[in-house]
């Protein structure tokens, strides 16, 4: 039955890097399924390969072993669209032209792609800035453009690599709520990497905890905090309890990673 088959299936994915003549195992046999429309958060200590996993899913990196399968339900749509941590906008294109970039490369007609881009810009609250260049925007606004660019490309799966990490705390809180609203509107499958447990619990349906290098799936937590969710959920006892539970496990991994770093030659 279609409803039960996963949108994304990662099976036994390992990634090995070559560094200074040695091979380093970054990801070790990662397997997980992501349901259609799910908001999946990935957390783990630094160096656990969170971003590496996302880059494999985005096709920016080829895994050494294993397989990634993404169900293509809409022919013609790209499989993934990534929101990069450092926004990675094209400085020589206006906000509007950055958002139309993906569809333009796929040969979508100008009228159609611009109409869609304006819709997405309205969704992230940047209608008035369509003709601005990236250098004229604040960090938060640039990341909104990054999000608009990704959703305008209408991917099967939306990938986000710590998109809010570089923002100040207030902007981040506002953006978290906006992300929830956009996700609820579009119903996209999202895989979201973050180093913040609070953020993962606020946004995610499930939280995948990766171990320190090599990254393995340590445990997957279900976030039963109800929907729609807002920032106030952070005050609930259930939120605190789950946070403590995941943190005690993450703490072990972080300490292990630090010890390894210290002992490294």
């Amino acid at each position: 039955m279609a409803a039960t088959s996963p949108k994304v299936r990662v099976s036994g994915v390992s990634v090995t890097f070559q560094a200074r003549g040695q091979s380093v195992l970054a990801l070790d046999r990662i397997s997980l399924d992501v349901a259609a429309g799910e908001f999946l958060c990935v957390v783990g200590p630094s160096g656990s390969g969170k971003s590496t996993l996302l880059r494999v899913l985005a096709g920016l990196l080829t895994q050494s072993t294993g397989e990634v399968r993404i169900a293509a339900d809409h022919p013609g749509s790209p499989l993934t669209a990534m929101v990069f941590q450092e926004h990675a906008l094209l400085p020589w294109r206006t906000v509007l032209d950055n958002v139309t970039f993906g569809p333009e490369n796929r040969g979508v007609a100008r009228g159609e792609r611009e109409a869609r881009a304006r819709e997405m810009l309205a969704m992230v609250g940047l209608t008035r800035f369509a003709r601005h260049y990236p250098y004229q925007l604040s960090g938060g606004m640039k990341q909104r453009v990054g999000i608009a660019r990704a959703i305008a490309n209408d991917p099967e799966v939306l990938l986000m690599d710590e998109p809010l990490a570089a923002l100040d705390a207030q902007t981040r809180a506002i953006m978290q709520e906006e992300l929830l609203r956009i996700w609820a509107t579009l119903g996209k499958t999202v895989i979201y990497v973050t180093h913040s447990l609070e953020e993962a619990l606020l946004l995610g349906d499930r939280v995948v905890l990766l171990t320190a290098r090599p990254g393995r799936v340590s445990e997957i937590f279900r976030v039963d905090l109800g929907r729609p969710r807002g920032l106030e959920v952070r005050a609930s006892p259930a939120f605190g309890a789950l946070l403590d539970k995941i943190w005690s496990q993450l703490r072990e991994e972080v300490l292990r990673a630090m010890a390894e770093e210290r002992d490294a030659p």
Partner: protein
Amino acid sequence: MRRLTPWLAEHWIAAVSPVALVILWEWASAAGGLREAFFPRPSTIIVHVSRLALDGTLWSHASATLARVGCAFAAAAVLGVAVGLGMGLWRRLRDGLDPVFAVIYPIPSVLFLPLVSFVVPAGEVATIVTIAVTSFFLVAFTTTHGVRQIDRLVVEAATHYGARGRRLFTAVLLPGALPHIFTGLRLGLGYALIVAVAVEIVAASRGLGALLWLSWQVLKVEDMYATFFVIAILGAALSYGLAAVRARLLPWVQDVAHR
């Protein structure tokens, strides 16, 4: 022009410094601190500039220089950008050409004139090729660097959003290199004028360099200074002209829009 007034308010020193220099010079000559036989007053020089302009001498020489600079710069710009892009994109081409360029580039440009004359017809063509050489290297170097310095993350993001092959070149690599290309063009244009005047001193009967040298040889010091003045103004006009073109064509470059 619309933006000139706020620009002057911000950068008034840029307008004041050359004027101050001229006033200082005029005063030093008038006070007897400078010997007028060797350092005529700016007011005298201006009189000679207008005299040379009115009897047609200036135009005849300036047009010859401008034509040479124009042809040489156009050739250097087209070839320099093409070769520079190639070197920026392909490591093999870069590895092959870099040492060759490194050896040729430091040779004083005027010395190419006899060399070039063995290959192409001596005279106007050889002059233009000689003027183009250094200009070409400057444009090629900056263009290569322009391609190489593009943020890898931006290229990766563009590729992720479907820009490949030709599309990656026209939509990402070329615009990403353009600010550096313009820097190279501005340097190259300045050098084309410098070398043109130098070549005209040694091997031309027409051109600002020729006029300069002739004035010096017959000890018409005022005319020599008048020619200096015209060359200086011409160089500044070309440089600022190209900067204005860059500001118009690349509105997304922060330093152009904000400084």
